[in-house]
């Protein structure tokens, strides 16, 4: 293998598994260390820079960082159940305990730059665009069909998971930057909007349409059958405050989980989730399923809905075909009928949560924005520009329904594109990240980070009692970590951003680092091709998704090979090295946001 080029920012970034997996590349270990040292406001601000909604995300994020977290791999075969660091819930700790941070937020721009931006929708995507552009002096108008900003975070995510004050606070921080917010204003013509002379338009209108289920009885029993996301919105707006005693929720995603748990709180004594797929294949996050089951909601799988059964329009139940999963000749999973008689489940109401779609009825197809066959806008995946370069899409409106953190990530990128576009720069040239590398060495075995490794297993977030939370849809279920538990959970983080940096010319090949490394990460061996090399290291490097760090050739002609996979970042290698060939260096990686830093050229005289 060729020596690893560690000057490439992506090399060490990838080692920070959580940050790499986070769509907005939040510097997770950096904020976790701040939480550990009780600097909650600082931790909050680190988050706010990257993901804009730390309090909201600390409760609701889909947390792609956690399955990626190194701690989960490190704990494999080391105890009962390997688990990642509770990254998401630590974020909430920062939000809960930060105190008043308003003085740290940017101020509304002192002078405007004369450029006008329209955002359609006030979901997380649009709000991120607004946040990034407002301090730069852009005039940002946010059009929202609802009265308040927040998008689905406000109208879909139920209050027992996300209190409204948190939304008000974090949406408020953005609108207070001087946004021109137009609530209760639904845009019904893109042509008309384009005619208003905005310099750029950002479409963050989400994926607002719930999929229906056209099976026999649907029309007749319509009064008792609701589309999940419409029903959740009605619950939010107070149009719905009760539900029948027996409720069936159809679907296996997170919307289904929110529907069933909401129904449980609005009078549904006997709520069931019924899904086509197997339990394991359900789209809902594992913890959402757990939470539903914890509230006594059974999840019945391998049942395909056949008909709504009704008595002259009064819904009495549903029938289901029983299926099982089978692999076909090409190894694909298919559901095949078991041949057993259909199953009947009695119910009073059904919530259909079988998927979500995009809809852009208000965008005229002849206004210059190209759409593909499936009705989605044709976009540049990096710049988020449509075929009209000054019209950009982001969030669920761009590539179909995802989640909040993706909407935020899109928002940042779109804001960069807008800023470059309106400064006359090519948007395809994406800005380099800001990278800072700082040695952590303070003394012979003194580091400026806490290198000790905690043996704790994952700490559980305490819950309010079920009897209290099931009584009202407004009582938040999770209570958040207290300071003490937050500290302990923070200790589980391995500081993956503190990198092991190797300087070949200093190494005397004493083997000290190899011997001391608890995880057998390091080998000195003859070089070879990657697959073969992976098999003959101190411990086999079986996780091909994790890189090998290969040095230049050493005096014995061998090379140093480090498997990044399960390194604890404990620094023992660097403590044991007599020559300082290993050093522990903190690698702070930050994506460049809109503003002078994202531009390649000298400003053209415009105030930034």
């Amino acid at each position, binding site marked *: 293998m060729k020596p690893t080029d560690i000057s490439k920012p992506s090399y060490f970034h990838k080692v920070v598994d959580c940050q790499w997996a986070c769509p907005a590349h939040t510097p997770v270990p950096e904020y976790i260390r701040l939480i550990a040292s009780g600097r909650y406001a600082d931790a909050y601000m680190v988050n706010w820079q990257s993901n804009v909604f730390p309090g909201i995300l600390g409760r609701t994020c889909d947390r792609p960082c956690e399955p990626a977290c190194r701690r989960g791999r490190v704990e494999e*075969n080391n105890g009962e159940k390997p688990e990642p660091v509770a990254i998401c819930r630590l974020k909430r700790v920062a939000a809960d305990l930060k105190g008043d941070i308003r003085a740290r937020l940017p101020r509304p721009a002192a002078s405007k730059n004369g450029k006008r931006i329209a955002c359609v929708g006030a979901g997380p995507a649009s709000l991120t665009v607004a946040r990034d552009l407002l301090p730069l002096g852009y005039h940002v108008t946010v059009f929202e069909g609802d009265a308040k900003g927040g998008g689905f975070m406000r109208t879909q995510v139920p209050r027992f998971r996300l209190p409204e004050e948190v939304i008000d606070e974090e949406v408020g921080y953005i609108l207070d930057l001087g946004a021109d917010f137009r609530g209760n204003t639904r845009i019904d013509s893109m042509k008309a909007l384009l005619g208003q002379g905005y310099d750029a338009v950002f479409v963050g209108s989400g994926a607002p349409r719930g999929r229906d289920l056209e099976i026999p009885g649907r029309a007749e029993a319509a009064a008792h059958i609701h589309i999940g996301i419409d029903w959740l919105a009605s619950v939010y707006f107070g149009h719905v405050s009760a539900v029948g005693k027996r409720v069936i929720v159809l679907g296996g995603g997170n919307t289904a989980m929110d529907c069933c748990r909401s129904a449980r709180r609005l009078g549904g004594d006997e709520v069931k989730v019924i899904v086509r797929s197997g339990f394991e294949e359900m789209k809902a996050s594992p913890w959402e399923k757990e939470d539903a089951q914890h509230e006594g909601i059974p999840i019945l799988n391998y049942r395909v809905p056949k008909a709504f059964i009704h008595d002259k329009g009064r819904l009495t139940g549903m029938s289901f075909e029983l299926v099982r999963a089978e692999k076909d000749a090409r190894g694909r999973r298919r559901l095949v009928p078991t041949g057993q008689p259909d199953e009947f489940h009695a119910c009073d109401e059904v919530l259909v949560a079988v998927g979500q779609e995009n809809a852009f009825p208000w965008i005229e197809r002849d206004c210059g924005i190209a759409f593909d066959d499936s009705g989605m806008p044709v976009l540049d995946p990096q710049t988020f520009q449509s075929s009209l370069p000054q019209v950009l899409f982001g969030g669920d409106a761009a590539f179909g329904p995802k989640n909040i953190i993706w909407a935020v990530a899109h928002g940042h990128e779109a804001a960069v594109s807008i800023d470059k576009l309106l400064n006359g720069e090519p948007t395809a040239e994406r800005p380099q990240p800001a990278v800072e590398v700082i040695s952590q060495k303070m003394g012979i075995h003194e580091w400026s980070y806490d290198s000790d490794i905690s043996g704790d297993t994952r700490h559980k977030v305490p819950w309010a009692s079920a009897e209290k939370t099931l009584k009202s849809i407004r009582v938040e279920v999770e209570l958040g970590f207290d300071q003490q538990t937050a500290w302990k959970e923070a200790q589980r983080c391995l500081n993956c951003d503190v990198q092991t940096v190797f300087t070949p010319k200093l190494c*005397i*090949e*004493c083997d000290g680092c190899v*011997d001391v490394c608890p995880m*057998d990460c390091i080998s000195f061996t003859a070089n070879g091709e990657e697959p073969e090399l992976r098999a003959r290291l101190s411990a086999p490097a079986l996780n091909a998704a994790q890189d090998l760090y290969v040095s230049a050739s050493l005096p014995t002609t061998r090379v140093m090979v480090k498997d990044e996979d399960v390194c604890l970042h404990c620094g023992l290698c660097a403590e*044991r090295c*007599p020559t300082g060939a290993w050093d522990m260096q903190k690698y702070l990686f930050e994506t460049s946001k809109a503003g002078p830093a994202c531009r390649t050229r000298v400003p053209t005289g415009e105030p930034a």
Partner: protein
Amino acid sequence: MTYHAKPKLHHPSLARNAVGLTRRDYEGKVSTLCAGCGHDSISAAIIQACWELDVKPHRVAKLSGIGCSSKTPDYFLRNAHGFNAVHGRMPSVLTGANLANRELLYLGVSGDGDSASIGIGQFVHSIRRGVNMVYIVENNGVYGLTKGQFSATADQGSTSKRGVVNADQPIDLVGLALQLGASYVARGFSGDKQQLVPLIKGAIHHRGAAFIDVISPCVAFNNHAGSTKSYEYVRQHNEAVNRLDVIPCRSEISVEYPEGSVVEVEQHDGSVLRLRKLAAGYDPTDRAAALNLVLAHDSRGEVATGLLFVDSAAHDLHQHLNTTEVPFNRLDAAVLCPGAAALQRINEGLR
């Protein structure tokens, strides 16, 4: 040197051996030696060898004297018995322990100061008596613990860190052990575990006095230009005479080697030492040839490493003394004390 304890977490694929232990279970406390010390690599090699051989840690006695090298038993096999003797006195304590309980695996760990200076008298007698043991000298050419004075194994003409030339003749512990009748004599280098681990395994399988001289650079006091025990010097002058594979029992041998390239020596316990020859015509079962080879290399400034000599038919101290199979420490009073009548008879016989 490290303040934090080594984390208990280990690589997910870490294997268990036949006695259900991982390699990490053979570790000891975190070393307090200087970072980069060769001695730590030797500890790692002992750990590896014991794990590979499924040694039960509680059936091992690790004994040492005084010195950085003699501190190392604290850093491996935390569940073994241990005894830290006075400077240079490890061989006698080991001999005594071995006489009391012949069933343990005796691991003597010493330094060149501990064995070639103050303890040389003890060293020679434990070897010539054929005590069944693995005797490892972690040879750095200096008194590491007392800050780097030349030891008796420092080569004539080599210089100290401050540039002082050593005028005295060195003691070659390998040559000495050969002359004294050691039945397994090897030399290794702490910087080459691929060679060292099998040498230790072969010694563990050996019955009799097994001696291994391991060149072990002292990074603090003897790793400079002018030293003949530095990483760089040893790497440049290391002449491996053979490569050893230790095969626990004969039935497992399956690989075929070209005629004449391999010597196999079966030990008393059925294990096989397979030596892939690197030096042409060298016979490791010939004691005189071994001595010649060591001297010849020495005169060229080279360090001969590998398994230099083995006598698999050798007897140990217990056989010399015709002791009972049952270890002394398990003999009860009835067996140990023949009674007044027997004493009477003995006394009569002496009148």
